[in-house]
């Protein structure tokens, strides 16, 4: 059960700043994939654009590194057309909750069996430090000179309000927990949101490793089958709870879809029967 099987057979220069939380997430991801028993040949990661989205380049797997904000629709379709693949949608907070916000809310409702890993550094990294939807009020950035002013986006509470079945938050600094949670998400049959807090050492001087240590705690004695308890915890912002907030099986997109009612053949393998066309047109 080695995470090496996801390591590329050649040296890669990972285009992140030294000390960036993305390096830990890289390790966490490869480990949880290995622990979940996934084979690289059956894994597709769909990503958007940003520092987080570069992850796919450094893992031995199939990937579709698409547009900023659009990792989810691509991932949804991949899983819908080929249910035999393990599909992850992975990108940054800006990508997933900002540009891609509409897909986020509707993907939750759709409930495809994919894992959505969101690198949440509470800032726009690749474009050099503007505020992100999750940026904390008051943080000064290159654009928000007097401090970021909007209400921070609460991805967990939003996902819960929309009926998500697996909602979790981890932090790159707590590797073991993060690995376990992502492994769990990989085993969950449905849309699994894992919001991964991580430090951006270059542009976020507020939410540092130290800050995460002081301002997070692990959920304990928490009942992940209770929506109210999950929502209560999700609305806590004083210190941020880590762990699985909510877990409840729900009908997935493919299960609901009539396309898989009569046959389980993946859509991508279905061929048209010329006989039926003849009936249509002649």
């Amino acid at each position, binding site marked *: 059960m080695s995470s090496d099987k996801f390591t590329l057979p050649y040296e890669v220069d990972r285009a992140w700043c030294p000390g960036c939380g993305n390096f830990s997430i890289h390790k966490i991801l490869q480990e949880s994939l290995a622990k979940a028993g996934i084979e690289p040949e059956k894994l597709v990661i769909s990503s958007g654009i940003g520092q987080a989205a570069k992850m796919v380049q450094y893992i031995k797997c199939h990937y*579709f590194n698409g547009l900023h904000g659009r990792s989810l*629709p691509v991932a949804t*379709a991949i899983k*819908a057309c080929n249910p035999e693949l393990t599909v992850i949608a992975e990108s940054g907070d800006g990508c997933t909750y900002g540009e891609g916000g*509409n897909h986020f809310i509707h993907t939750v409702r759709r409930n495809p069996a994919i894992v959505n890993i969101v690198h949440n550094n509470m800032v726009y990294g690749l474009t050099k430090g503007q505020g992100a939807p999750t940026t904390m009020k008051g943080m000064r950035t290159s654009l928000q000179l007097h401090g970021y002013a909007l209400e921070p986006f609460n991805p967990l509470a939003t996902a819960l309000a929309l009926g998500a079945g697996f909602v979790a938050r981890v932090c790159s600094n707590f590797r073991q927990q993060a690995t376990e949670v992502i492994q769990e998400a990989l085993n969950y049959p449905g849309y699994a949101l894992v919001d991964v807090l991580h430090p951006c050492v270059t542009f976020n001087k507020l939410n540092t490793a130290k800050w995460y240590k002081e301002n997070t705690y692990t959920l304990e004695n928490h009942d992940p089958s209770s929506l109210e308890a999950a929502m209560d915890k999700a609305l806590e912002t004083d210190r941020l709870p880590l762990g699985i907030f909510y877990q409840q099986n729900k009908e997935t997109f493919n299960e609901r879809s009539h396309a898989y009612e009569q046959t389980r053949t993946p*859509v991508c393998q*279905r061929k*048209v029967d010329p006989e*039926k*066309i003849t009936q249509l047109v002649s």
Partner: protein
Amino acid sequence: MNNSKETSLLFSGEAGQGLNSIESLLDSIMRENGLYVFSSKEIMSRIRGGLNTTLLRIAEEPKGGFIRYPEIIFSLQAGGLERLRDRIAESTLIFHDPQIEEAPKTGSAVEISQKEMTEAAGGKLFLNVALAGMACALLEIDRQIGMDATASFFQDKKPEENCQAFQSGFDLGASLKKEHSWSYSLSPSKAARESRLFSGSEAVGAGALAGGMNFIASYPMSPSTGVLTYLAGKADEFGLLVEQAEDEISAINMALGAWYTGARGMVTTSGGGFALMQEGVSLAGVTETPCVIHLAQRPGPGTGLPTRTEQGDLNLALYSGHGDFPRLILAPGSVHQAFQITRKAFDLADKYQIPVFILTDQFLLDSHWLERPIDYDRQPPRSYTIVSDTDYQRYQVTDSGVSPRALPGEGRGFVRVDSDEHDVRGEITEEFEVRSSQVEKRMRKGRELTKEQDGLELYGSEDYKNLLVCWGSNYCPARETIDLLNDQETACLHFSQLYPVPERAAKYFQQAERIINLENNFTGQFGSLLKQKLMIHIDEQILQYNGLPFAVEDIVDQIRDITKRN
């Protein structure tokens, strides 16, 4: 149209008065009766009320163009005749109810009483069927054929009441016909009876199925929704996955995800929705993921006229997406072309790994044609994908520019696709030489594409001096124009492939003394493209942009004006 081999009917009424049922019912009665029919509607963007019209051309030979002057008008709603004032000829027969509106200044008006007809028909709900019956009587359609068709059309919806309504109308029509000694009868044929009725939407949808389409994600938007609805209806039979996306951006990204797995994805949309897909088109371009985009045109800009027709989005498709990359733009003009071209779109998208556009419009999609059955060769779609080996490179540099496409999970290689500029392995690169070589590789596909020369049809005298150029849905009206002109001097050149502009088109232009460009938009977008690509001079333009399709008579008149002028 004063043509003894044809009759045309126009029904005017508000949304909710059952014009659609009249159209469908009469379409099928005519077929049963062995007469060709073409029907077309112009409707307002509302669900009830307003003023809509449905035009039916019933003929011994297939017809396919919109016309300005119907022979017979039935007006059901106040304001209808006022709105039709420019479409009434001296010879037009007009059925109107003086209780509802005044008779128009021109045409020969015949009074009817809606109240009486409604009573005879058995209630308001049945008035439309009574009108259909009346029309049948005027055309000397066999009463029994009409009755049978009515019974089967309404088999789940009060068949007896509807038949009774049909009868009542038929009786009225027959007695009026006798009284006025009208004669609108046509000779039926076996060929017509063996023909099939298609709307443009159905033909596009059936073509997609024949092309192996098995995934569609779209967001509703007139007039593109018909194709989506049609395919939703075929989903179970053909094992399709049909998804209503949250927006158009999602739709095109889903379609690309589908192709990535080896499925054949499609989106159907209209101008405003397509505007939102532009970044996705560029994504298809850079990742070399195939994609088929049905772009159903309607008048813009902005929301424009949602339920009307225009050919205003060619430029949008042609230049959609940022950066340079190859694409193919097709524009069918008939139901046959719609089927064949849509089918071909899937093949070429897969072959060249590019976005392929099918440009249609409200006129083509919402009209119905009784046509000979479509030539279908039963060839299953060819797949161009390969099974990867461990050394697989998604963006291998090849002479044709096409890199073999493998699928994730099939084979031992990895399919690594990137929207950033990438090297052969699909990894982000910032090497200048690699960038240049990938740009050149992609663009080489465009050069290859020009070999797929098709989609050009000359109609009319080979010795033409005047060449009428048209594309897409102007196919039928333009051909009919040539028939009507019948001057041995004018031919029409129809493009169903718009881009790359077929190179062999050049020779047709050389012969022409006068090039007349026909387009349903303000600026003559295709004409501009021809100017740019073939360096030709366009002498005259016939343009229209009021939301209506071209009427055949109008084209004829304008060409006569032009040829008279100089």
